[in-house]
């Protein structure tokens, strides 16, 4: 290999690391986000080119086959996916990243120990720290992979509820976690010949996959934003661990950046629900509350689309509060159409978006962006909360817990302390909802009984269609 490549490779890796940092920084501002994403993609390309240069003349058949298959699947998935299905796809992508890291660490074990048939433990052949990080990479990677697949199955509605045997999940989780670490340590230091290392590496992968399944299986819908952010973070940590196995700094840096970014999102999501990460993973809503209270409703007033449209027609200011129901009904375009009608009549329109509305961080923002809602109209919770007092009509589309006044008024409620959108302060609240069924937290929403609340039952999209029709007739 010529000398210049030897010098060029580390410089290219450094350039790649710097561009990853600049790219991710760009992604944190609306103005520069698209460019930031592009810069991160260029950083990736440079890292790949540097690696190929470093490898020199090798057999490219496996590499090409893998890249063509992966590139094809990735391209089709990215271009075809509906925006309403983004949470599922992000979950799957997180999983494939974690899985890839686990596979790389396993491949290194085969390449360095098993295929040359070295005797001695993984730690003695690879070096202690490389072997230890290989174990961590396999464990974290498999947890990320199976956890993400379960999250995907739950998000796409293919898997529901929680199995009864997971009631004792705190104990089961602890036992499995300790077992995983014990197996990993034995795989690293104990197993002394290739055959034993194969067995224990497979055992480690198996227990990691199992752990991911039992961690995510009991976690319900509204906690999904936390879980997805956490899996996102873990996919980065797994990549960084792989970087330690290979003594490759660009992997360590990029992995650490993703780990940090996922952790920040996890924190934001937890804060928005007033829950700790431990609480999300190991307890349920209501687990520690003595009673959820009655869920019977009285004084609920159901209205027709015509009556609701008449109220909307007179409104000078309207705030729309979207929730997961909007995504389920795919009603984002309909909501925009209605907002346009109201705006044309001179009403001031804003959207109040709760940070955990939907099933992943920023879910509502993406859906409304797809429907061409100007992002200036999308208001954060802290910005919009003082506005409700002076607002004529709040239209709640498929949201429930995030507008429940009990979070501020009832210390006994499981959701007490969770920051909410104070919609009850508006003159009139129109709730588009399928039924009176409780939200994810399983608590009653007294808002439904308020005198200034109008319930409009039905599928969100259908109700919005009816409202648009009525509004048009009122105008004509």
């Amino acid at each position: 290999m010529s000398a210049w490549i030897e010098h060029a490779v580390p410089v290219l890796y450094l350039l790649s690391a710097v561009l990853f940092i600049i790219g991710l920084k760009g992604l944190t501002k609306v103005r520069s986000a698209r460019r930031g994403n592009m810069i991160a993609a260029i950083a990736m390309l440079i890292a790949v080119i540097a690696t190929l240069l470093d490898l020199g003349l090798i057999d490219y058949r496996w590499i090409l086959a893998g890249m063509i298959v992966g590139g094809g699947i990735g391209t089709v998935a990215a271009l075809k996916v509906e925006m309403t299905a983004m949470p599922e796809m992000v979950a799957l992508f997180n999983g494939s990243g974690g899985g890839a890291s686990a596979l790389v660490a396993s491949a290194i074990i085969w390449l360095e120990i098993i295929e040359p048939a070295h005797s001695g433990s993984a730690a003695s052949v690879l070096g202690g720290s490389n072997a230890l990080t290989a174990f961590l990479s396999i464990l974290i990677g498999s947890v990320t992979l199976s956890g993400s697949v379960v999250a995907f199955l739950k998000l796409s509605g293919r898997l529901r509820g929680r199995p009864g045997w997971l009631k004792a999940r705190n104990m089961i989780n602890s036992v499995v976690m300790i077992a995983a670490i014990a197996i990993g340590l034995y795989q690293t230091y104990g197993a002394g010949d290739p055959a034993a290392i194969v067995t224990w590496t497979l055992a480690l992968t198996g227990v990691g996959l199992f752990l991911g399944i039992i961690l995510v299986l009991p976690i319900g819908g509204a906690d999904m934003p936390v879980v997805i952010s956490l899996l996102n973070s873990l996919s980065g940590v797994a990549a960084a661990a792989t970087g330690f196995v290979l003594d490759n700094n660009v992997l360590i840096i990029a992995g650490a950046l993703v780990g940090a970014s996922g952790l920040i999102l996890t924190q934001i999501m937890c804060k928005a629900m007033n829950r700790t990460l431990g609480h999300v993973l190991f307890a349920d809503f209501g687990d520690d509350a003595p009673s959820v209270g009655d869920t019977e409703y009285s004084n609920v007033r159901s209205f027709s689309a015509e009556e609701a449209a008449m109220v909307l027609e007179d409104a000078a200011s309207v705030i729309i509060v979207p929730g997961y129901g909007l995504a389920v009904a795919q009603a984002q375009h309909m909501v925009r159409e209605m907002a346009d009608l109201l705006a044309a009549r001179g009403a001031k329109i804003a959207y109040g978006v709760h940070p955990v509305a939907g099933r992943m961080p920023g879910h509502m923002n993406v859906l409304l962006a797809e429907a061409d809602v100007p992002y200036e109209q999308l208001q954060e919770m802290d910005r919009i909360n003082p506005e409700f007092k002076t607002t004529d009509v709040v239209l709640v589309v498929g949201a429930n817990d995030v507008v429940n006044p009990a979070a501020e008024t009832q210390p006994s409620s499981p959701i007490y302390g969770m920051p909410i959108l104070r919609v009850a302060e508006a003159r009139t609240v129109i709730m588009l909802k399928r039924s009176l069924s409780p939200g994810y937290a399983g608590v009653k929403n007294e808002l439904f009984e308020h005198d200034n609340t109008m319930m409009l039952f039905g599928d969100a999209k259908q109700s919005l269609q009816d409202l648009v029709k009525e509004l048009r007739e009122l105008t004509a």
Partner: protein
Amino acid sequence: MMGAVLVGMYVFVLAVFVGFEIIAKIPPTLHTPLMSGANAVSGITLVGALIAAQSADPRVSSILGATAIALATINVVGGFLVTDRMLGMFRRRKDKR
């Protein structure tokens, strides 16, 4: 002289701090694009996969490596593309109005 692991630890810890520093003030509008963009970046494990898949004959390591390449490439290509598509929606609307 520091060992490679220790240098790695320095790099890791400092990179985590840089990550926290640059991402701390992320507006909610960009939560999803940041997540899918970061996800694409975690496909950097592709670099490791390339190293693992270099032998010609179909051995366990090259099969594991090729599978890792496929998974990581899904991440990289799919992640950057879908992020660009999403961010295009954010921008297009601005141009319109």
